[in-house]
């Protein structure tokens, strides 16, 4: 049941590198990350790759497999034919540290630029009351495992270094939506989403949604509603205020 697969893996560091060819054993039920590990254990002990959970839960093992952003631990070898050459490269939007490991600090920087959850001052821990239906929207976004593949694939910053300072990327625009839809958050996030975090750059191509391993509907459920809120707001600021108050008192009753 095992066979020898052909792999081409990007090797290199400090801005230089090349694709290296390997022939490596594959057994039934294995995933791409298993094969990378086999390379480490048998042919290239210093091959760099990130991983933790091996179960699609931590978002560490993001890579590009035959040009598509994927989690190495969730990409089964059975999705390829035995004679196919499988090309594994690091995420393209972030600088390579070594081999398959990239510098994702851009994402942590963006996370810090978004104002944190801010509840009303008078609600004490233990007093929060929310209905399941009111938390579900934000819960969908909180499924995010921070694999950063949506940010990697988004054309606004993929190959456009110049857009990085003004664009939080789908991951963190979604974080703004998550907070905006949180029943207890009191910050007005709409202007900032548009003006500081680059919501306007997004032209809803949905590429981010397509690669999300958690199947979060980033574009439909976070980005488009957020855009609508921004537009509403432009015409009628009271709409925002009304919504927010309604939402809060509605969920508390």
């Amino acid at each position, binding site marked *: 049941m095992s066979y020898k697969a052909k792999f081409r893996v990007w090797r290199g*560091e400090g801005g230089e590198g090349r694709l290296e060819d390997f022939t490596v054993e594959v*057994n*039934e*039920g*294995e*995933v791409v990350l*298993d094969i990378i590990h086999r390379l*480490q*254990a048998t042919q290239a*002990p*210093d*091959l*760099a*790759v*990130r*991983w*933790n*959970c*091996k*179960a*699609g*839960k*931590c*978002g*560490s093992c993001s890579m590009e497999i035959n040009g598509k952003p994927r989690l190495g631990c*969730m990409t*089964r070898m059975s999705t390829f034919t035995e004679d196919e050459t499988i090309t594994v490269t690091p995420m393209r939007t972030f600088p390579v*540290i*070594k*081999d398959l*490991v990239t510098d*994702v600090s851009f994402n*942590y920087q963006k*996370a*810090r630029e978004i*104002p*944190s*959850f801010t*509840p009303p001052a008078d*609600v*004490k*821990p*233990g007093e*929060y*009351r*929310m*209905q*399941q239906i009111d*938390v579900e929207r*934000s*819960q969908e976004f*909180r*499924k*995010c*495992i*921070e694999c950063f593949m949506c940010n990697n694939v988004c054309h606004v910053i993929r190959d456009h270094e110049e857009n990085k300072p003004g664009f939080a990327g789908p991951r963190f625009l979604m974080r703004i939506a998550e*907070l905006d839809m*949180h029943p207890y958050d009191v910050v007005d996030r709409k202007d900032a989403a548009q003006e500081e975090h680059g919501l306007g750059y997004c032209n809803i191509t949905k590429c981010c949604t397509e690669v999300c391993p958690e199947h979060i509907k980033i574009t439909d459920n976070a980005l488009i509603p957020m855009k609508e809120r921004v537009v509403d707001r432009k015409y009628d600021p009271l709409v925002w205020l009304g919504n927010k108050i309604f939402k809060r008192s509605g*969920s*508390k009753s």
Partner: protein
Amino acid sequence: MEIERHEYDVVVIGAGGAGLRAAIEARQQGKRTAIVCKSLFGKAHTVMAEGGAAAAMGNVNSDDNWMVHFRDTMRGGKFLNNWRMAELHAKEAPDRVWELEAWGALFDRTKDGKISQRNFGGHEYPRLAHVGDRTGLEMIRTLQQRVVALQQEDERLHGDAEAYIKVFAECTITRLLKDHGPAHGPGGAIAGAFGYWREHGRLILFDAPAVVLATGGIGKSYVVTSNSWEYTGDGHALALLAGAKLINMEFIQFHPTGMVWPPSVRGILVTESVRGDGGVLRNSEGRRFMFDYIPEVFKDKYATTEEEGDRWYTDQANNRRPPELLPRDEVARAINAEVKAGRGSPQGGVYLDVSTRLPAAEIVRRLPSMHHQFKELADVDITAEPMQVGPTCHYIMGGVEVDADTGAAAVPGLFAAGEVSGGMHGSNRLGGNSLSDLLVFGRRAGAGAAAYVDRLAARPSVPEESVAAARTEALAPLERSGENPYEVHQELQRTMNELVGIIRNADEVTEALEAVGKLKERARNVGAAGGRIYNPGWHLALDLRNMLLVSECVARAALLREESRGGHTRDDFPGMSAEWRRRLLVCGASPDGSAVTVEEKVQPAMRDDLITLFDRAELEKYITSEELADFDALVKE
């Protein structure tokens, strides 16, 4: 070569639930705090926890309270727990969970808008706060975002986001450093920590009077495990090498339900919520075999017929819970026995079935990540067919011996919390009690470290010769061209799995100790090809020291404890002994790790108001006749 240097008040090693909560506390108390972790920020093991965090909030059943939780915890741990920790845990867990909500966590809700709670093995009432089956992710993200919120505050106040709390990600600590000067007592005091950056291999030194260990567990010493590469027992080993003690190292939890197929995912966890939400275990003959394995001590608490067990899910007041929800050690042993008796599934496990128990849509809603995991990794649709599962090395109850209230270890300046600490869970941890443990004792250790720094008369300083020694040790594998570290690692994993696994005996454990001794020799000569930039072979070569040291502690303690209790089963001593309940095994090591010692220590008697929370009839099953006489005298008063 230059060593990068930093000065902090408190260095927290580990960015899981325990480490982050500790760091938040230290920072909130005004201490300059560093968080150091091996993975990226937000990827620590805690992210993988599924089921939930146990806290007696009483949202689903108002009869729940801290005393019931305390009793369940002690029972689960077979009364070997550090009762003070179990008490603090049960009392403080609700506040810690509510606090997360105030920091932005969104737990699943009850109808009246409170945090929903689910059933889990060993918990008398629905008690686990959860978010579907991704509770650990919610917890780590919330704590991560709390750290960010504090950094934003510091940015506003001081113009520097990292002025008071900074994360050093992908950085591994290899040694704790001590000041042995006369001002710091006979054994010396913590002065700092030494390590390397995984990214570029440069060396780093933290100068700090207080270190909190929150490094998690040791599962990577076993082949079949639910744990990731991070779980190499670093904190356990760092503590030992610094002169602290480990207790209860013989107790390892084998989770009953790990995936068994395909081979590459063997060991990956199948959450207990599957059973909590109605899933049942069957053998190849279709029998719900757990009814055959209800132990004497639990006879009156579990259903004896399938009908009663099934009724319990909807009517808990009038029925007893099904035996699938026995504590984990019982279920794991039962599965092991069924497979050994030839009644296993084709791939060497047993069947776990939820497909005939709940409607498909309900399964997807309640167990989304299990549905996803099986579909993607095993081609199994859990809404239509049963899963195959078997025991997997999951959690170590043993760890650094600490003071319950402050998390302080025996070495001044050293603190520990979370999975790396020992005592709280006794011989067996209940599901859901870890996430709450992280919060309760993470906070306490952070506060303990802050208070220690405040009390300190003179700041210890790092001796240059210990820095030089740490440097030599860290770079050694790169300078050798010896054996491949992966081979030594694999052999250790096989040894521990086969000889110090779920069922043990004196001969096999002795054999394991010999094997570990030989592997220690080999580990001294492993070499790492390649350079210092992100070199996993080098990293593994350094981790081997820790795994071997910890494995030796596990094996030595396992050999000495001549009884079976919780996560330690000896087929040559199958009974539980009341005498042994009072004894704790304490491991220590020489500073170079070459010699491991194990000493016995008496477990302090439970405080009067706590022991009287139990019935005499229950205590009788666990404690000696002497202790029982004391109890009788106490009750009479």
